């Protein structure tokens, strides 16, 4: 195991290097397109301009109100879908009959692009944050409820029988058998739910909204302020990458090997 560990570390270093080289090549291409080949600055601003704008956005604190709106929507949406998804999923997982009925049904609905219903959500909840919260909660509910059903509904029978034969109480069965067995699957669903909640909140902001990072990006595009728009896009990518890293870290910590 240790012998192959060194090889994996080495090959991991190599793939990192290739990844960095790829990103550097993209940047170089961008630079060449704008500074040498003369692509329109309205379509594609120069890297240096975007960098200046990014420093300005960060330095002036102009991003704070929009970030606050978007994160507020995200937290509310995820809190709703997590509590509903996990509790409903657990309830369904307690009965083989309910699993047979609801698992395929929920999986089928999950396959529908729910963002198509955004106009309905805006009509019901308005143009403000509430429609984003409702949509984000709806979309992220499905991966969470489905993974909770999968996690708690398919725990190895032999393990449950063994625990029962040794005298485990219902509470002990939950804490020491069902929960540890289900946790990795449920956490994977929560991570996926978090990601789609974030995506749908930002996406719906770009379509119909008063504020938020998605709103700001579209607003800048409509004013042809592409350099600043790119700066915001870079900022959003950084935020999303950071949040995903935090969630993955949390998931990794709670998971048994």
């Amino acid at each position, binding site marked *: 195991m240790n012998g192959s560990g060194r090889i994996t570390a080495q090959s991991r270093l190599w793939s990192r290097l290739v990844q960095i080289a790829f990103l550097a090549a993209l940047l170089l291409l961008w630079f060449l397109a704008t500074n040498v080949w003369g692509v329109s600055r309205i379509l594609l601003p120069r890297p240096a301009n975007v960098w200046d704008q990014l420093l300005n956005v960060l330095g002036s604190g102009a991003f704070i109100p929009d970030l606050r709106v978007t994160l507020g929507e995200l937290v509310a949406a995820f809190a709703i879908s997590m509590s509903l998804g996990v509790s409903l999923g657990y309830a369904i997982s307690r009965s083989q009959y309910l699993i047979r009925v609801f698992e395929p049904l929920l999986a089928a609905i999950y396959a529908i692009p729910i963002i198509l219903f955004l106009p309905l959500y805006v009509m019901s909840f308005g143009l403000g944050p509430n429609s984003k919260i409702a949509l984000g909660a709806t979309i992220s509910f499905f991966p969470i409820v489905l993974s909770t059903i999968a996690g708690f509904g398919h725990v190895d029978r032999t*393990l449950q029988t063994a625990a029962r034969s040794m005298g485990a109480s219902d509470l002990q069965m939950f804490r020491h058998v069902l929960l540890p067995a289900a946790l990795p699957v449920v956490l994977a669903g929560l991570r996926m739910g978090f990601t789609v909640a974030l995506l749908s909140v930002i996406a719906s902001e770009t379509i119909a909204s008063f504020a938020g990072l998605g709103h700001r990006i579209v607003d800048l595009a409509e004013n042809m302020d592409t350099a600043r728009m790119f700066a915001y896009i870079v900022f959003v990518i950084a935020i999303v990458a950071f949040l995903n890293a935090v969630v993955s870290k949390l998931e990794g910590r709670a998971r048994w090997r």
Partner: protein
Amino acid sequence: MTSAQPAIRVHGVSHQFGEAGEMRHVQALRDTSLDVARGELQCLIGPSGCGKSTLLSIMGGLIAPTTGAVTVADKPVRGPMPRDLAFVFQESALFPWNTVLENIDLGMTFQGVAKAERRDRAHRALEAVGLLDFAEYFPGQLSGGMRQRAALARALSLQTDILLMDEPFGALDEQTRMVLGEDLSVLLSRSRKTIVFVTHSLGEAVFLADRVAVFSARPGTIKQVITVDEPHPRKPSFMTAPKFHALRDQLYGLLHDEIRKAMSETAQLRRRYDQAGVADGDGERA
């Protein structure tokens, strides 16, 4: 066998899965009676599907029989009896997210052993199966044979008078299986536990058992009980003794027809399901 009161008494037990007339209805056991004496190792052997594992689950209170009764230590069995009997399953039923030591500790926690006592008992159980150095390993890091040793240690730590073992070495290779069998025989000679041991292997049955209960094909019942008169611990040399071969041949003679019967019945059952799947109306005539 000298003790008058048996450790386990099975009286007139029948069991069926599903209701009569249902497609999946199976009569697994029919009017089975059996005594397991204190301190003996009794093997249950029979063709696939004869209900020997079902009988073991009924003895342990994991399944309630359709009719009939089981008593363990003079108490009627109505559910799991963690203080009286412990199970070892074929698949290692160790919790994969716990280390070997944690698994053993958890079993005793379920059983209700005080914390102060658990450490010492876990230590002794690990020592008995030769796994002391692997206490901190996770089941996934162990070989199949070591996992079954760990499962046995967990069962031993519960300090029950009775062990119910459901093909515990069934998934292991022949050589590992022989070594574990020898170790179990040594263990048995020291502890005088009562063990019921379900197996498919004729050699394993003769090598381990004080008595072997031979099942008929489904719906299973006990066809004959054979005594193996050889003290524990049994040496590998027993396996080459003429007595071992005579008993093994006798078992094979008893089982041979039952295995054929079981195979043709399984084929019939399969045909019946297939026909029902194609044309429902013909299901009843078939």
